[in-house]
């Protein structure tokens, strides 16, 4: 508001900017924001059926906050984030760095780490279920244990986290690899003449330079961890004795909106989930100033 009049150059810049963001913003508003606004509205309504609603005020929220299962799901979701995001990002960065190093069979390794992304989800689930099987599973045979990896309430979350990390490493590593490759080689050359070891090199060059990419991957990963649904749905069936220990917010949403047809209540869960993500994102954006390095 300070400058009411922009200089002609600044005005031109602004017009170009609007032109360049227009397709994205229009698309997002129509495809995503408008449905979200509808979701906000329906969270205050009772779904009568086939898209007809009756306004009921805060009823859904009151019902939600009084429900023990809802709080359990909130905690499960947060726990899932804590278990998957840091470890997953660390491993993905490690993989990306190794795949970026001077190694033999680089192409082969890169392809192998890419494979999980295009494997059919049914295949992935099937394999992990064989690995985790409590009586005959490979994991228990390997360690000589008798742990019900997906039926014991104490282990089911860890098992799901392992599968999540496994399936995301490829995605994250590819994005981070791109970040790593944008780092000019000359930086390393200058640095190694100074005699810096690989660990020091990582903290003085690699991490700061890859931090913008790491940041976006982290945000995306956190958001998708809060929204986790598919994986849990495939690994843990509704009659699994451990289902309450792993039920996430979106799992609850799916059951109320799509199975029970209670879209109002389901929408309230979505709003809560989005608020949770918003909170985490704001914290991340404040925190990024401490560690993300933009060359501005």
């Amino acid at each position, binding site marked *: 508001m300070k400058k009411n009049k922009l200089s002609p150059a600044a005005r031109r810049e602004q017009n170009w900017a609007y032109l360049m963001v227009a397709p994205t913003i229009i698309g997002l508003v129509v495809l995503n924001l408008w449905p979200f606004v509808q979701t906000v509205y329906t969270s205050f309504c009772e779904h009568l059926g086939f898209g007809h609603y009756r306004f009921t005020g805060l009823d859904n929220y009151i019902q939600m906050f009084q429900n023990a299962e809802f709080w359990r799901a909130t905690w499960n979701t947060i726990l899932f984030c804590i278990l998957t995001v840091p470890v997953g990002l660390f491993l993905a960065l490690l993989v990306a760095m190794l795949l970026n190093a001077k190694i033999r069979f680089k192409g082969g390794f890169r392809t192998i780490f890419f494979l999980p992304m295009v494997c059919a989800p049914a295949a992935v689930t099937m394999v992990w279920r064989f690995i985790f099987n409590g009586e005959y599973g490979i994991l228990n045979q390997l360690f000589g244990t008798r742990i*019900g990896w*997906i039926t*014991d309430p104490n282990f089911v979350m860890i098992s799901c986290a392992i599968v999540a990390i496994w399936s995301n490493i490829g995605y994250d590593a590819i994005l981070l690899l791109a970040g790593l490759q944008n780092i000019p080689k000359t930086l390393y050359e200058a640095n190694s003449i100074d005699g810096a070891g690989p660990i020091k090199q990582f903290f003085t060059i690699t991490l700061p330079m890859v931090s913008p990419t790491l940041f976006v991957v982290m945000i995306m990963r956190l958001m998708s961890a809060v929204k986790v649904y598919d994986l849990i749905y495939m690994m843990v069936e509704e*009659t699994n004795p451990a289902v309450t220990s792993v039920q996430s917010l979106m799992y609850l949403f799916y059951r109320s909106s799509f*199975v029970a047809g209670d879209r109002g209540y389901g929408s309230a869960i979505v709003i809560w989930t989005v608020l949770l993500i918003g909170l985490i994102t704001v914290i991340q954006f404040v925190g990024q100033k401490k560690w993300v390095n933009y060359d501005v």
Partner: protein
Amino acid sequence: MKKIPRIAALALALTLLLSLCGCGAADGKTHLKFQIWDINQRSGMEAVCAAYTAQHPDVEIEVQVTSWSEYWTKLEAAGESNTMPDIFWMHTDQILYYADFGILADLTDLYDGVEPDYYANHYSDISIGNASGTDGRIYGVPKDKDNVVLVYNKEMFDAAGVSYPDENWTWDDMADASQKIYDATGKYGYMAYNDEQLGYWNFVYQNGGYILDPETNIHAGYTQPATADAIKYYVGLQKNSWCPDQAFFAETSPGTAFFSGMGSMFFEGSWNLLDAMRRYPDLVGKWDIAPLPKCPNPAAGDGAATISNGLCYATAAKGKNLEVVKDVLRFFGSEEGQRIQGESGAAIPAYLGLEDSWTTQFKNFAYMLDVQVCYDQFDTCVQYINNATRRKWKSTVSDEMVRIYNGSDIDQSLVKMQQIADSYVTSD
């Protein structure tokens, strides 16, 4: 370098345009879309449609398959925006939601010009019930019917020296046989797991209890003594060493356990039998089916019961081609249409007297499964449990069942299930 992608883009853009304009061929025919969810029945449905279009060359019917869960997402969204397929399958779990909301065309008068009381003459009350709305009107042409049977492994019975189950078997006989087989072979006996239609519902009705009050179909009966006793008995089966626990079933379905030789008995729906014969060719002849065991001392009734469900063919109330579609549906519900469906092996036709057309496909195997059991059991069938509010309490009640299996107090949980189901009754 840069020109190649541009040419490619142009070519693809053209393809896109062509693909946009490709539909809506003007050949003067009426094109109908018929949506189903089971790929195993596609050829059967196509055969029924082909029989119709052979008589009506001006109509073309395209059978489209979607997977089960997306089917309902799509159908509901289509119902909202009035873009439903011309013909589609309806399931008992869903029909009341659609019918009571006025989405489905009322087909009660479909056969008025053909034969008065057509439905009542050719379809059982259960079939008609499974295709009716809460108002008692008929919203779908009955397609098929099913029930639940006991599948048993003959080799394991032989090894333990136990005679095969027959129509006189009771729960006690099943438990005895299970124990003997377990002692003799180390294999599981009857595999009882947390399921409604293939599990405790059958036991509840055998014992003379009910899930929904048979008079009004409104109030739940979880706390009725006969119901509660049956559920307790069924859940308690897992305490026996011959029955795996729920953690086992969370990883291995009873069917998988049975066909990989881990257990000797489980309950299966008739709709899965043909598939099992085809998928396990090496096991054909090593297993067979029997009627469900009876309750030895029922609180009411004679102790026999099996849950029976069925699908129906439905169409939208606001469909564009309603008159043509009605004619197609009339054919689907005719003796000919039902017979083709039965002979294709898709499912047991709902049409009375045509049940054994379903036997056709079973004759192709070296061993003849005792499918007569399925037909005979229609005499003791109980209609699939459903009412207008069940959709809303279904998953909450099944959560409570999980708690029972996890060791919560059964009586308290049953009270809770009762409250959950009944809470939707009083609110309206």
